[in-house]
């Protein structure tokens, strides 16, 4: 029984990716591992008094989003674990793929013009993950 790593951010586009990962896990009999990366670079865009532990608050939100994903998997009778970590998305995803011993990484296809990734760069990123970690990566 393998482990599927699915990076998630929450939101409508992520639900589709989560559902695809859940379906894959069910089909293969694998467990699921949802990943959320806390990235606070948006705070660099403005000058504002950042005097509170924003990281902690966004981490709590990330854990909440992961709990939602976990509930979604449970509804399909798929067991899922979660990881919430801090840093840059690309590095943290590759790190989790290595450290957690996953057999498959699932990435969500760009939902439209507003997506963070364009399809070409996402395909390049998938190839990069496979090259650096040796873990099969699919775009769903």
């Amino acid at each position, binding site marked *: 029984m393998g482990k599927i790593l699915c990076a*998630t*951010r*929450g*939101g*409508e*586009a*992520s639900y589709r990716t989560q559902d695809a990962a859940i379906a894959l896990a069910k089909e293969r009999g694998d467990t699921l591992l949802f990943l959320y990366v*806390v*990235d*606070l670079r*948006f*705070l*660099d*865009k*403005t*000058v*504002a*008094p*950042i*005097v*509170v*532990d*924003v990281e902690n*608050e*966004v981490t*709590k*939100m*990330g*854990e*909440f*989003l992961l*709990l*939602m994903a976990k*509930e979604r998997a449970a509804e399909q009778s798929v067991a899922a674990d979660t990881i919430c970590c801090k840093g840059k998305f690309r590095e943290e995803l590759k790190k989790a793929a290595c450290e957690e011993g996953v057999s498959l990484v699932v990435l969500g296809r760009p939902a439209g013009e*507003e*997506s*963070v990734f364009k399809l070409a760069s996402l395909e390049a990123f998938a190839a990069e993950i496979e090259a650096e970690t040796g873990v099969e990566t699919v775009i769903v």
Partner: protein
Amino acid sequence: MRIRNRVGLAALVLLSLFVLLRAAPANSGVETGDEVTLTLVGRVVNTQGTAVDEAEVRVFVPSASSGRGSDEETQVAHIGADGFYVVELTLSQALIEAEAVAVEISKSGFRTTRQGLARQEMACTSDRCHVRVPDVVLLRIFNVAFFIATLTFVAVFVLIAFHVLHDTLAAFLGATVMLGISYTIGTFNPDFWILGFDQAIEFIDFDVIFLIMTLMIVVSIIGRTGVFQWLALAAYRAARGSAWRLAVILMAATAVMSALLNNVTIMLLMAPITIQIALMLEINPTALIIPEALAAEVGGAATLIGDPPNTVIGSFADLGFNQFLMHMGPIALISTITLMAVIYLIYRRDYAAVRKVPSPALLARLEKDAQITDPVTLKRGLLVVGLMMALFFTSELFQMPPSVVGLIGATILLVWVQPNVEEMLSEVDWTMLVFFMSLFIVVGGVEEVGLIQWIADFIARIAGADLFVASLSVLGLSAVASAIVNNIPFTTAALPIAAFLTRTVPGAGNNVLYWSLSLGANMGGNATYIGSAPNVVAVGVLDRAGYRVTFVDWLKVGVPVTFATVLVPSIWLWVRYFWLKF
């Protein structure tokens, strides 16, 4: 500046008394042939009537070896910060009688002005003459320094508006360019001189810096107690399943809290938990977060401490906490109600799609995340905030600057709670304080070279003597500009213009132009997400939750909200300051 003027006037009066006492017994004429001591006192102003400092005063008398037309420089004096100068020289009575003495005022960036002294303007005794030289109005010339400072100023705003550089770095760069050019090329060629270091330091408003710094400390300590997250959950419970009611409670709570505490911190703490509530209720989080951010900006307009633009305006124009509350409080209230109405029209379908029974697991998680973690510190923090409010309300009685109130509150809280001071001070956002200091210098630079004066003259020409037109001009300009650039730099740059118009437009003594500026800067910042810091935070946190809000997405909500929240309070402005005049 007013104090300096008073000191200058006092010095002038004392000097006059001294001269008159020395003059006894009084003599109506001057004995020809003797030497007399001539004391000249005068003031130099610009076209706006503001003192021109650091100009040079030269007194010329005809050369002994030649006739009129070949003058000899006898005395040089420097003008103080209040624009006054005093020159004393000894010369023959014949020169005075011949009205041969002339005063020349010069300063880089201004046209050199020469003025002859008429005999009848002098009060003379046997050995002394005293003259109060009429105010000299120096006219601007657009020299190289003007264009360099203007380009630097525009470049800083462009860098900030398009996020080419971090706001602080952009302002820091601007200040460095202005000072660097002054102390390199400007040392050899006065046409390149923008401003000196001492002047730059004088432009920094330390009342603003200290107030913002101390409020950061207070909010930081209270923010750690979990109270804002608890409030968000309390709002969810009070809404009893109605998403529209929840949005109204959240907007009202955010507006009130933003009036008393820093609105960015409130957004940073409220936004993640609000998103969780929205997800649990299965409604689009943007329908709660965007209204919350807009309310943070609108509510912050109510008080001197609610939003940095207000803090800057209050300190510059010497407007106290109570004045702000009395004048901006009703405006903020009207704007908040208007905001709620517009939000309902925009998001009513989202609110209707609410899930009535949330998942128990998610609710349990939410309750875990929204607990008050340190009730003792919270009680102390609230008591200190209460004390600070009492001090703010009474500060005008004691002539206490707002920064001192902040200092008292922060110190009491630090001593009482005794957090790790190093950790606490390291959490003060020095980046923002450096931003403010650099920005004050950049704006000071363009003020020194005359750009602000030129813009103010331009607006004054448009407005003429019509206060209503001036008010609308300030309001409209500040609303549009704040939508494009962060409202803090815009307000800092626009303040000298509002101050000039307040001095020159008849009837503007009721400070309506400052309230127009505050209204425009605060509400205008809501049109785009780059216009104000709470909006940037809202978009950033939404993005972290997988809800990307584009520039255009925000405009669809921000523009109608801004239009309504500027238009409706404008009617109030007209009723209060132009029609009923109360």
